[in-house]
């Protein structure tokens, strides 16, 4: 057995160092205390590890080897769009003239950066069918909040008090959480047995207090809302607006656009659809697109093109919801997304979605004999299936997920949406080959067989990872949240 992985603090030895700083070439006659009153200086030295550069590199290399990314293998995590992250995007984001620039430089000295942002705003508008885009939000949930704040400001500008946000029961948790953070209340409506928005429930829910309906389309079940036109009519007739959660945009690029479906606001998760990497949890970017009625409320600033073809930051008018983040958005992520869009172009992006959808349907058909598919028919970029048929052997969906680890796969999203029992949500993405899909499918079939014949192998999985299942109850009950080395 390998020795336990050390914490960086445990590697510390007094007298070692890994840093190299510029010389102090200014006069040093004065004591530090004559520059800064001693009461403002640290009373105790900061306790940080003392390690050499080799220690640093070995430590983090060791940590990286205990982590699984898309480059390690298939990652069919539903609703997360774990597609291949092109290397060129990483390279261009590191070009000095794009990486080492300051947002407060004179505008004439960041024209290249502003042109990139301006073009990206236009490209994302075209992709979503919207009239304008703000690149400011830092993530999908941040985009949701920004969009809801605009919706709220829009209603208030018309002298209307509308406080209710309607979400289907299959929605992402961020939707209701974003509504609360925007000072709005959530109404959850049930889905039909076909996984669609229940039109009667929607009609009953809308009214003069409806601020918006938030919808993911295709939904988290991987299904396209076939009655989207009627849904939009119902909400608009009641005076509400439609918010498009763009988490599942990988299914529809060039095929249909939120703006054409009747949505008034959309956010995109550039770290999903546009392949900017997830980074182990971030950074992402969540630009929002809006129809013209909402343009006055966009957060500040946006990039505009001047008559002389130069670019400027526009800090908006009095109706803007204000600023939602420091500076202009996650520019380094926008650079990667822009490079991705320029790699594919509009026709290429359509092919991306076609392949993503075909991959998902192929997997669903091949797995259908072994798992219950609650919503048969055509799916979009992802699909859900239930592991409840394995319960008779004492095997749960969580066990299937853990067993997949032994075969070198990242498991699907499990136990979401909440509306499907023992749920697995599978999203293969377009960057996976048929052989990869077949390999995963065959492994799933084998795990079903194991569940029937030797269930303990599945129940006690994983067997090959560096650690086994962790005691999450202890972690929450007696939290140890730092190493208290200081």
């Amino acid at each position, binding site marked *: 057995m390998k020795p336990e992985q050390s914490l960086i603090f445990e590697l510390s030895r007094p007298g*070692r160092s*890994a*840093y*190299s*700083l*510029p010389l102090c070439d*200014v006069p040093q006659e004065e004591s*530090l205390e004559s520059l800064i009153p001693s*009461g403002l200086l640290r*009373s105790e030295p900061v306790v940080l590890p003392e390690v050499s550069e080799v220690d640093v590199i070995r430590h*983090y290399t060791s940590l990286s080897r*205990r*982590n*699984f*990314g898309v480059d390690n293998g298939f990652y069919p995590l539903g609703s997360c769009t774990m597609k291949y992250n092109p290397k*060129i995007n990483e390279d261009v984001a590191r*070009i*000095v003239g*794009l990486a*080492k*620039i300051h947002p407060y430089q004179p505008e004439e000295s960041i*024209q*290249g950066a502003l042109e990139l942002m301006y073009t990206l705003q236009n490209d994302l508008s075209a*992709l979503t069918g919207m009239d304008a885009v703000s690149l400011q939000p830092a993530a999908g949930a*941040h985009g949701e*909040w920004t969009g809801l704040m605009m919706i709220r400001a829009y209603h208030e500008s018309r002298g209307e008090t509308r406080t209710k946000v309607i979400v289907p029961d299959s929605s992402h*948790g961020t939707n209701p959480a974003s509504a*609360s953070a*925007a*000072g709005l209340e959530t109404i959850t409506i049930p889905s039909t047995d076909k996984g669609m928005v229940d039109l009667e429930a929607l009609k009953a829910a809308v009214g003069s207090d409806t601020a918006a309906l938030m919808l993911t389309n295709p939904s988290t079940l991987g299904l396209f809302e076939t009655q989207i*036109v009627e849904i939009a009519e119902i909400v608009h007739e009641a005076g509400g607006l439609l918010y498009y959660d763009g988490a599942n945009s990988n299914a529809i690029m060039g095929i*249909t656009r939120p703006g054409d479906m009747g949505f008034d606001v959309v956010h995109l998760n550039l770290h999903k659809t546009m392949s900017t*990497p*997830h980074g*182990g*949890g*971030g*950074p992402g970017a969540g630009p929002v697109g809006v129809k013209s009625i909402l343009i006055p409320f966009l957060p500040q600033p946006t990039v505009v093109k001047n008559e002389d073809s130069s670019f400027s930051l526009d800090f908006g008018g009095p109706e803007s919801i204000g*600023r*939602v983040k*420091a*500076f202009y958005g996650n*520019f*380094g*992520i926008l*650079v990667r997304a822009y*490079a991705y869009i320029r790699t594919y172009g509009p*026709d290429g*992006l359509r092919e991306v979605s076609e392949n993503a959808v*075909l991959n998902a349907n192929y997997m669903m058909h091949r797995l259908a004999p072994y798992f219950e598919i609650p919503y048969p028919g055509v799916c979009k970029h992802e699909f859900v299936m239930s592991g409840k048929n394995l319960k008779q052997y004492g095997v749960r969906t969580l066990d299937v997920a*853990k067993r997949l680890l032994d075969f070198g796969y990242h498991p699907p999203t499990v136990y979401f949406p909440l509306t499907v029992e023992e749920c697995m949500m599978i999203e293969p993405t377009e960057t996976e*080959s048929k052989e990869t899909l077949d390999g995963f499918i065959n492994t799933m079939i084998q795990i079903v067989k194991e569940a029937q014949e030797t269930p303990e192998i599945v129940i006690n999985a994983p067997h090959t990872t560096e*650690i086994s299942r*962790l*005691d*999450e109850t202890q*972690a929450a009950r007696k939290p*140890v*949240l*730092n190493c208290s080395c200081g």
Partner: protein
Amino acid sequence: MKHRYLPMTAQDRVEMMETVGIQSIDELFSDIPEAVRYQGTMPMSEPLDEYALLRHMKGLADRNADFDSHASFLGAGLYDHHIPVVINHVISRSEFYTAYTPYQPEISQGELQAIFEFQSYICELTGMKVANASMYDGATALSEAAVLAAGATKRKKLIVSRTVHPEARQVLRTSANAWGLEVVEIDYRDGVTDQAKLAEAIDGDTAAVLMQSPNFFGSIEDLSSVEPLIHAVKGLFVVSANPIALGILETPGKLGADIVVGDAQPLGIPASLGGPTCGFFAVAEHLMRRMPGRIVGQTVDRNGKRGFVLTLQAREQHIRREKATSNICSNQALLALCASVYLSVMGKEGMREVGELNIRKSHYAANKLSELTGAELAFSSPFFNEFVLKLPEGSSVSAINSKLLKEGYLGGYDLGRDYPELAGHMLVAVTEKRSKNEIDQFASALEGCL
């Protein structure tokens, strides 16, 4: 054209369509109403081959002035510090950057431990008991702190100093508007918060006092005398701090802060036109279960081996939905990793030394620049690595900066943009990267522009 990221061959497509039982790809989209199907080609940028794209991106980059081509005296919340070269090598390990949030702990121990170490580092720097896995940036972290304070105290009044970063205050206003909170701004005096006015404003309705130190002007605030004022009314003390200064300046935790936030950008994160950076968020123990964002905790596996998991998730949106403490769903994991690697490289001695370098070089620059004809330091309060230079009457900072740009300098921030009374005042930042020679030459260049 066969695309290099799309492995599906024509043969694959035929076979897969056969399995699915369709004749054409269009059938996969038969559930989309005809009326909303997009016809034609979207009016977007055209595709480029790999070489053409590299050239195009380089072309865009060449139209920006950068920290390599220009000596930067610009800070105002985002700084040109030296970034140790090992950082890029670590964050370029694709096991880190191509992973999702570590929801499967058995194959995500690397990221989970990296976050645990980041939390430990932030606790050590800030002097606080608990830190989370990071926030979008320093500005949004401050807003989240304000919302936490309002919830914890069940009060609606927030008092924020005008020496807090103007953009952080703007984000705070957006957020306060959402939550129905009142924001009261307190003026400054000699570059630091006017404590008499602050004392007057604090009352039994005050949820929190929000301050920044070193503040937007670079001045170090007297936090220790604010602490009793706000705690006397049972409000919370929120401090936004510059983490690189915390290697040498007293920790806000020791000075009585309940919540400490800030932006980790100075710790090895490229400026990148202002994002992505990484907010940090640390609290006193009693506020732990009210914290927004992800938290990693230590535990053991079935064999008693040490391991790490995401914990205290009952606060979060995917469990609590509309009752969550925040809607945040991601963190800035890769940039938190930058900060951790930075702190690992610098260590105990390096953090003290870089702090001292910033203090000495900026004080040398302040002396030098205040000797320019008609220029003087606007404030006499102690500062860390940034100070306010009052230029001769009638000077336009933006016009001067355009001239400095041509001479190879990024001049300081134009304070008149946010503080009308400080028109003609330049906020000058001097990090460890600036040599004596660069400072001297900058002084001459600035003199030539006056």
